[in-house]
């Protein structure tokens, strides 16, 4: 949502019209140093225009291509349900380039149809090559109904030169954003300040039209008896503009208010209650209310006046007054208050800003389950990696839970191993710190990721996790059961796997553990489907998928088991289209940069379903990929046996399809009809697509059967697929 505009801000008609005028260009960049009113301008423009806006304020924490586009896709979902789904799914496919998500997002924007403005505020904070590349990619593909507005403090490396040359870029830079004498007059009149024409010119000249300087000047001058005289003194001074004006404004404040401003400036963002706690007062609400009304440098972050912050520049300069120690002390108090209020992430942020790594470690330990089960994995991992190694060694649960988080977001195994290595060292050096809980956490993570492609070892890790959990980690049991069940499933021990999965699902605390719960349900779906109980398999799968969607785990790899189980169940019930769709989804969710047992299995299920659907060429490719991965696993469990079965089924299907000779090569027109049949279109739909009559479609079809030596539509499609007559680009998606 665009942040709100302070009533004290001048409405800059000149610039608003300039923004309107550039409506034809896909990208408009507002590019100037801090304090030029870029964000305020874009805010007020968005509020005044009827078009939908997706507003993203970027910051260094978000400098990650996937996170950026997730925010944008979520924003698009708010405009219209379903519009962002393609992009979110693509983002959930690990190993897929972010550009695929960008393309899906563009499609969603096209489908929306109506004008949309996307705002990227503070683009200068983005420096990751992946993010910049994805933004360049997006600019090239912006649909006609979309406008991109970016504000930045420095020229972003997104090919501005090329865009300028193609007139695809509009720029509003410092020269345009600076206040004109006219605008300065408007501001002063609005604030009730009587300055002579000459004084206004002096003021604008001295500040060079810098909006932040002029707003500070307005704050300063409005309470003065002789503003003109003061302006002359200001003009004659050699002091830096911001420094001079901040001094004047601060000096004019009541000492108590000044003290309040200075001390709260270190807090970043704050509520009246937080200020009371940190400053030992009880009237912060009143002070903030008054400041918000009279001083446009205090920004209300929400509609209810709970959270505030200072304008970046103002806050930065104010903070200089306090020494480092005082600032740290205030931040620690803020952290303690946030912790008492249950605002865990804010407490961590304040502690980190105060350099208090012990407190950060303490908070992470206390709330690690909240983070992992709540899906806040990226931040959690980031904070753990920020901590000094002494703390990680003296609290082994930290690197261990970090490894668990990293595994859940499919980080490269080498990164996970680094965290395990720290934990192992902690265990060697200080064995007394190694509790059953930590032991459970290590073993369950190793089991879940089928570490190193060794299914036998995964089962061992799973069993060890069970033993350790019984000794002192009961709340982790659901996750342990799910991981052990999965390992047993891949080892081929379906009966025990099923028993354990049922035990997981039946535990009363299962719904609190999303990954374990969804995983166990998915395994039940797979096992029941394999053993011929399709009705029950489907029920488990749908329960898992519904639950995953509710808990936003829909795009995590855990849900893939359910999709694969559902695929097999649909295939048994001869609902082959649905089966392939589900299998594709299950495979996509399991994709990682390196081969894993889980992904190889998904490929085998996909191949199986495709054979049933007579997509033999594709099935052959899936099988090949799976076999290549399996060859490198030290212990692939039952996967080679499954692969062998799939290979046999494929060979049989290929033989049937290829048995009869191709009587005659079908004509291009007939092939077009064939592709329509393969895509599942009815004859009537094919006729509409190809602009031919239904009778023509029928006669082409008869000829196809004759030429392919086929006796049915399925047969004809299979035969054609086996002969490579169908285009590779054709797919159910």
């Amino acid at each position, binding site marked *: 949502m665009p942040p709100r505009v302070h009533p004290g801000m001048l409405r800059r008609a000149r610039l608003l019209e300039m923004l309107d005028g550039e409506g034809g260009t896909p990208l408009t960049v507002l590019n100037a140093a801090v304090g030029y009113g870029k964000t305020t301008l874009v805010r007020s423009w968005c509020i005044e225009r009827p078009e939908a806006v997706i507003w993203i304020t970027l910051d260094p924490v978000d400098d990650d291509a996937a996170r950026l586009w997730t925010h944008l896709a979520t924003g698009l979902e708010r405009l219209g349900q379903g519009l962002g789904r393609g992009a979110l799914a693509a983002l959930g496919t690990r190993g897929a380039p972010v550009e695929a998500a960008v393309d899906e997002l563009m499609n969603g924007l096209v489908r929306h149809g109506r004008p949309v403005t996307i705002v990227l505020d503070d683009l200068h904070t983005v420096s990751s090559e992946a993010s910049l590349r994805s933004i360049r990619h997006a600019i090239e593909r912006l649909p006609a109904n979309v406008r991109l507005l970016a504000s930045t403090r420095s020229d972003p490396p997104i090919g501005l030169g090329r865009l300028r040359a193609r007139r695809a870029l509009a720029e509003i830079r410092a020269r345009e954003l600076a206040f004109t004498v006219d605008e300065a007059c408007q501001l002063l009149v609005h604030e009730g300040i009587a300055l002579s024409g000459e004084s206004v010119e002096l003021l604008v000249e001295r500040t060079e039209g810098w909006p932040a300087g002029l707003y500070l000047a307005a704050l300063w001058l409005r309470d003065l008896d002789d503003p003109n005289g003061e302006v002359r003194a200001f003009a004659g001074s050699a002091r*830096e503009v911001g420094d001079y004006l901040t001094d004047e404004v601060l000096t004019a404040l009541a000492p108590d208010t000044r003290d309040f401003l200075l001390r709260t400036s270190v807090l970043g963002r704050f509520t009246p209650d937080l200020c009371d706690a940190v400053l030992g007062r009880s009237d912060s609400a009143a002070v903030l209310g008054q400041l918000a009304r009279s001083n446009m440098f205090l920004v209300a972050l929400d509609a209810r006046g709970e959270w505030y912050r200072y304008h970046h520049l103002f806050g930065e300069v104010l903070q200089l007054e306090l020494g480092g120690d005082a600032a740290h002390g205030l931040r620690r108090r803020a952290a303690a208050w946030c912790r008492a209020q249950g605002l865990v992430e804010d407490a961590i942020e304040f502690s980190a800003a105060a350099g208090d790594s012990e407190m950060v470690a303490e908070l992470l330990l206390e709330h690690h389950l909240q983070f992992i089960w709540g899906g806040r994995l990226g931040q959690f991992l980031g904070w753990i990696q920020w901590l000094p190694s002494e703390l990680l060694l003296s609290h082994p649960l930290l690197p261990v839970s970090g490894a668990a988080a990293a595994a859940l977001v499919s980080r490269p195994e080498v990164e996970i191993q680094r965290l395990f290595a720290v934990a192992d060292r902690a265990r060697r050096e200080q064995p007394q710190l190694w509790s059953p809980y930590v032991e459970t956490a290590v073993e369950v993570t190793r089991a879940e990721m089928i570490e190193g492609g060794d299914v036998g070892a995964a089962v061992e890790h799973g069993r060890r996790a069970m033993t350790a959990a019984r000794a002192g980690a009961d709340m982790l049991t659901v996750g342990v059961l799910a991981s052990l069940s999965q390992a047993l499933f891949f080892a081929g021990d379906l009966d025990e796997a099923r028993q354990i999965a049922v035990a997981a699902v039946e535990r009363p605390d299962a719904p609190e553990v999303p990954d374990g719960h969804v995983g166990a349900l998915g395994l039940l779906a797979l096992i029941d489907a394999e053993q011929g109980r399709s009705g029950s398999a489907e029920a488990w799968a749908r329960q898992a998928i519904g639950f995953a969607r509710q808990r936003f785990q829909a795009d995590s790899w855990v849900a893939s088991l359910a999709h694969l189980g559902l695929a097999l169940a649909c295939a048994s019930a001869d609902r082959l289209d649905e089966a392939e769709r589900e299998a594709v989804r299950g495979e996509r969710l399991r994709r990682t940069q390196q081969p894993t047992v889980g992904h190889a299995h998904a490929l085998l299920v996909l191949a199986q379903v495709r054979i049933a659907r007579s997509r033999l060429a594709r099935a052959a490719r899936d099988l090949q990929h799976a076999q290549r991965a399996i060859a490198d696993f030290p212990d692939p469990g039952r996967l080679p046996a499954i692969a062998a079965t799939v290979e046999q089924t494929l060979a049989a299907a290929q033989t049937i399809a290829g048995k009869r000779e191709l009587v005659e090569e079908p004509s291009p027109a007939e092939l077009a009809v064939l592709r329509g049949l393969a895509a599942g279109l009815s004859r009537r739909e094919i006729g509409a697509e190809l602009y031919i009559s239904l009778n023509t479609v029928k006669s082409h079809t008869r000829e196809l059967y004759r030429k392919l030596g086929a006796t049915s539509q399925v047969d004809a499609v299979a035969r054609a697929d086996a002969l490579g007559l169908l285009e590779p680009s054709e797919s159910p998606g």
Partner: protein
Amino acid sequence: MSPQVYRVVVNGELGPRYASAFEGMTISAASGKTEITGTIMDQSHLLGLLERISGLGLKLHSVTPLDNGNGESGTHHAPTTRS
């Protein structure tokens, strides 16, 4: 890799408030400008300093490497080691 002394000049004379803004550097204001002088370790350090200046709303005037005798070294290049 050898650190290099730099003199960074910004527009306007900065008051005592800014003393703590630039760690390890000496601030001296005169004739409508402020000199921020000190030893810069490497590229990252230099870029960090420039970002700090930009973040405080100050206007950068010049960036000059000094030789160890505090005269100008003649060429405008930053420490060559990337970090």
